[in-house]
């Protein structure tokens, strides 16, 4: 609070100094150049190949004899079937976005109001699903939603009759919501804890009721997080392939599933055109949100608890109880499929069935005794680590460049470029990426996969690091200069060191993005050992063997054990350090 006393904006000096220092500019360009080259090669070029495919007649662009045709695009707007697919995709994205927001908002609110330690625990629960392949979680969802599953059984028990969601639009919706929820909760939570609790108190001293305070003060304060988060999940929802592919019937075909199917039968042109359409549509949404809110703000990841939760005592009011209930539902939706892998892994049957028949631990033994699983886990770890490191590095450079930019247009370009890969349908990116890597002779290499995963993971890392860096006190960097530290040294020892929690968060998000990625990994790996999700996917076709849920259970257990150890360690550390005496400035 003491920081309020300053009257000179702290962000000013660093920025204006950099402007005129030729040396610093050179350094910046030297740092930025590899990143730009990376994006040109591994994002722009692949997308370009897709665009060229979409513009050629047979979907195979030939440089020697280029032909251009807009037929594929015309088809998209004329064919009533395709229009229906597009409409359905939009509907699914809109509906799942609405439901996700409705669930995530109270959940994030509730968590943001809790004490920091409890909040951290709940956030971890919300993050745990990230570690279990979405393929496995969706498979667990099929078990949960099936007629033998707990939901229908409960419904029958209560005399509510058949309640079957599997292979229905509702089932697809549930699956999509489950996929999107963690992202939305994290973005909203970051925005909510940043709200200055005093503003809410101020509204109350002015006579505003809690409801009014909520609408006229709280909501405007988190508006940009809300809009950015909504856009993010809308984009993810539009392009996500696995949920409709696994949970949806053929009647639920969406653009991404359609693209996949058309590619299987070599209809490249229309598939590519559809992908480009998706890309353009989401870019328009992005620009719209940036226009309205002035920023795209996804403060995902660990944040310092300040503001409301720190300031206002927690009190059980009616809205708080309602939020708690929704939070419970949300956490159930997220955690139930994860827990479901345990019963799925102990049945004696050779393929996975629910409810499990018999009891055996042989599948666990198999995980450790065959190379089938250990290799992929190792591969996934290597690729994930590589992706995490590279993504964080790129995110740091981009965030730095963005913050030292003065022109709004420049910022928009940097952030647009940074976020575009999130928007691109994975299957198209995969094909384009494959084309490019073939040309570069990189296919099948681990480096190639890491680079490709970095393309899709870096945007998330960038979002987190950008939020942290722009929130960080830039005066600290200037302080380091006055102490004689060079710019490089100041950047590393002060700026980067100061946002370590966010860097860890960015690393973790990048890691799990790679850890759970199927489509690119399917295309870019050659050879017997594939990443874990691809190996799991491989069993989806030929029958899920119980080793798959066994692997998943082991991962869940490992994550929980790691978190528990971390919790114990930090509890011990807390005990050994004196309690803070003052609010920090």
């Amino acid at each position: 609070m003491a920081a309020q006393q300053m009257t000179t904006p702290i962000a000013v000096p660093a920025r204006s100094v950099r402007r005129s220092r030729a040396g610093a500019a050179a350094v910046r360009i030297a740092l930025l150049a590899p990143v730009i080259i990376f994006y040109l090669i591994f994002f722009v070029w692949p997308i370009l190949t897709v665009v060229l495919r979409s513009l050629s007649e047979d979907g195979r662009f030939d440089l020697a004899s280029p032909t251009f045709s807009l037929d594929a695009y015309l088809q998209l707007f004329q064919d009533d079937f395709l229009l229906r697919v597009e409409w359905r995709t939009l509907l699914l994205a809109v509906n799942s976005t609405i439901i996700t927001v409705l669930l995530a908002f109270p959940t994030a609110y509730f968590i943001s109001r809790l004490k920091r330690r409890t909040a951290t625990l709940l956030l971890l629960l919300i993050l745990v699903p990230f570690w279990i392949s979405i393929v496995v979680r969706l498979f667990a969802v099929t078990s949960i939603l099936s007629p033998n599953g707990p939901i229908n059984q409960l419904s029958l028990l209560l005399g509510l009759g058949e309640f079957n969601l599997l292979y229905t639009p509702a089932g697809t919706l549930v699956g999509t919501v489950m996929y999107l929820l963690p992202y939305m909760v994290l973005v909203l939570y970051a925005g909510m804890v940043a709200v200055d609790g005093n503003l809410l108190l101020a509204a109350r001293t002015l006579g505003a009721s809690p409801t009014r305070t909520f609408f006229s003060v709280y909501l405007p304060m988190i508006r940009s997080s809300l809009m950015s988060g909504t856009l993010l999940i809308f984009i993810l929802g539009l392009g996500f392939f696995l949920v409709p592919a696994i949970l949806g019937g053929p009647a639920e075909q969406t653009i991404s599933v359609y693209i996949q199917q058309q590619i299987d039968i070599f209809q490249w042109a229309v598939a590519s055109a559809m992908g480009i359409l998706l890309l353009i549509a989401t870019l328009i949404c992005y620009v719209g949100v940036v226009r309205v809110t002035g920023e795209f703000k996804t403060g995902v990841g660990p944040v310092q608890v300040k503001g409301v939760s720190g300031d206002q005592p927690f009190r059980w009011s009616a809205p708080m109880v309602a939020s708690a209930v929704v939070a419970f539902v949300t956490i159930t939706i997220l955690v139930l499929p994860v827990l479901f892998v345990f019963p799925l892994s102990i049945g004696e049957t050779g393929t996975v069935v629910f409810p499990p028949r018999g009891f055996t631990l042989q599948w666990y033994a198999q995980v450790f005794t065959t190379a089938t699983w250990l290799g992929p886990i190792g591969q996934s770890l290597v690729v994930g680590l590589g992706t995490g490191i590279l993504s964080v590095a790129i995110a740091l450079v981009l965030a730095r460049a963005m913050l030292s930019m003065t022109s709004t247009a420049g910022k928009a370009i940097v952030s647009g470029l940074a976020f575009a890969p999130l928007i691109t349908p994975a299957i198209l990116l995969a094909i384009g990426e494959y084309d490019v890597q073939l040309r570069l002779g990189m296919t099948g290499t681990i480096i190639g996969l890491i680079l490709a995963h970095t393309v899709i993971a870096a945007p998330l890392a960038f979002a987190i690091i950008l939020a942290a860096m722009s929130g960080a006190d830039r005066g600290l960097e200037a302080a380091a200069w006055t102490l004689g530290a060079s710019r490089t040294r100041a950047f590393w020892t002060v700026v980067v060191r100061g946002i370590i929690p966010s860097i860890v968060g960015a690393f973790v998000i990048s890691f799990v993005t790679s850890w759970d990625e199927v489509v690119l990994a399917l295309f870019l790996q050659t050879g017997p050992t594939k990443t874990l999700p691809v190996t799991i996917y491989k069993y989806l076709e030929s029958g899920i063997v119980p080793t798959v849920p066994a692997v998943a259970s082991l991962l869940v257990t490992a994550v929980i054990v790691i978190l528990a150890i971390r919790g114990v360690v930090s509890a011990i550390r807390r005990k050994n350090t004196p309690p803070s005496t003052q609010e920090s400035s």
Partner: protein
Amino acid sequence: MSDTTTIRSTSRGEVTATAVGLDYNGKPALDDTDLRVHAGEFFTLLGPSGSGKTTLLRIIAGLLDPTRGRVDIDGEDVTHVPTQRRDIGFVFQNYALFPHLTVAQNIEFGLKVRRVEGAARQRRVAEMIELVALGGLGDRHPGQLSGGQQQRVALARALAQGPRVLLLDEPLGALDRALRQDLGAEVRRIQRESDTTAIYVTHDQDEAFILSDRMGVMRDGQICQIGRPEDIYRSPADLFVAKFLGQANLIDVTVVERSGDLATVAWGEARITTRPHSAVAGPEATCVIRPEQIRVCGGEAPAGYDRLGRARVISSRFLGQRQSVRFELAGTELAADLDPYDAVPRAGDVVSLCVRAGEVALIPREKTSEA
């Protein structure tokens, strides 16, 4: 003393806190404190950082729930009435302006909530903008204002609805002196004119003296003395208050004689006439000599002064309105504020010092902790 002089019975906004206390993690931040602020009064809470000023103020506002005790406004128990129904205005230490609203909209907020009609509302906003001298800035957002300007918006916002009690938490902390004086006077004037009770938290002693009808000095979650600024300054209850308000030369003395309103104490050779203290019964006491009570005199003390003895000048410094001189007298260091237009004593000079007879305060002797 004369607590009743400032009561105006027609005013609204009498605030009474009875044995309120609040614990953080089992440790009391506010320690069962009583406070009675008369309607229409300007009351200041003064105290070092962390003494519980903000906590008490927030409890009165209903922004914090007390662990114990009750709060009444105008005789009505409001302990469990939510903030928005207490009819108060609050100025926050860090302004807490709504960043998404313009200056005018910030000021308008409370009026809108109260459903003040359009034209009347516009008029009132214009009036308030005028009042805090922010003409022309109505359309700016808080982020585009300097600290001082933000402060004034916060004040205007709290005042716009004419609350019965105005609570101010170090509202002028971030401003420079000239602005602080002007705005302080403004707050005072507005408070008087609008017949509002004001409770004002500050750690600036001058501000407290200038503004308040009465004030309370807080320490460790308790109010340790309440009274008119003058009374507290002249007759501090204890060492803490004596040291916290103004500067004080503290000397350990022996009471040699008590007669009615005065007591004579001995300090070495010197005999000093002091104001007695109800808690000083035995001969041991501490004398509080304010720097401005000391002056240089000839061999004989002039009328109204007691002679302290001969002292050596250690250092002297010009401070504008006064000259701060440090003396050494029989092994004790004494700080004195002398008239800057008198001859400047030089370090090493030896002069006679006198002290105002009958103005020096006596307090119970305590183990002197570090200043």
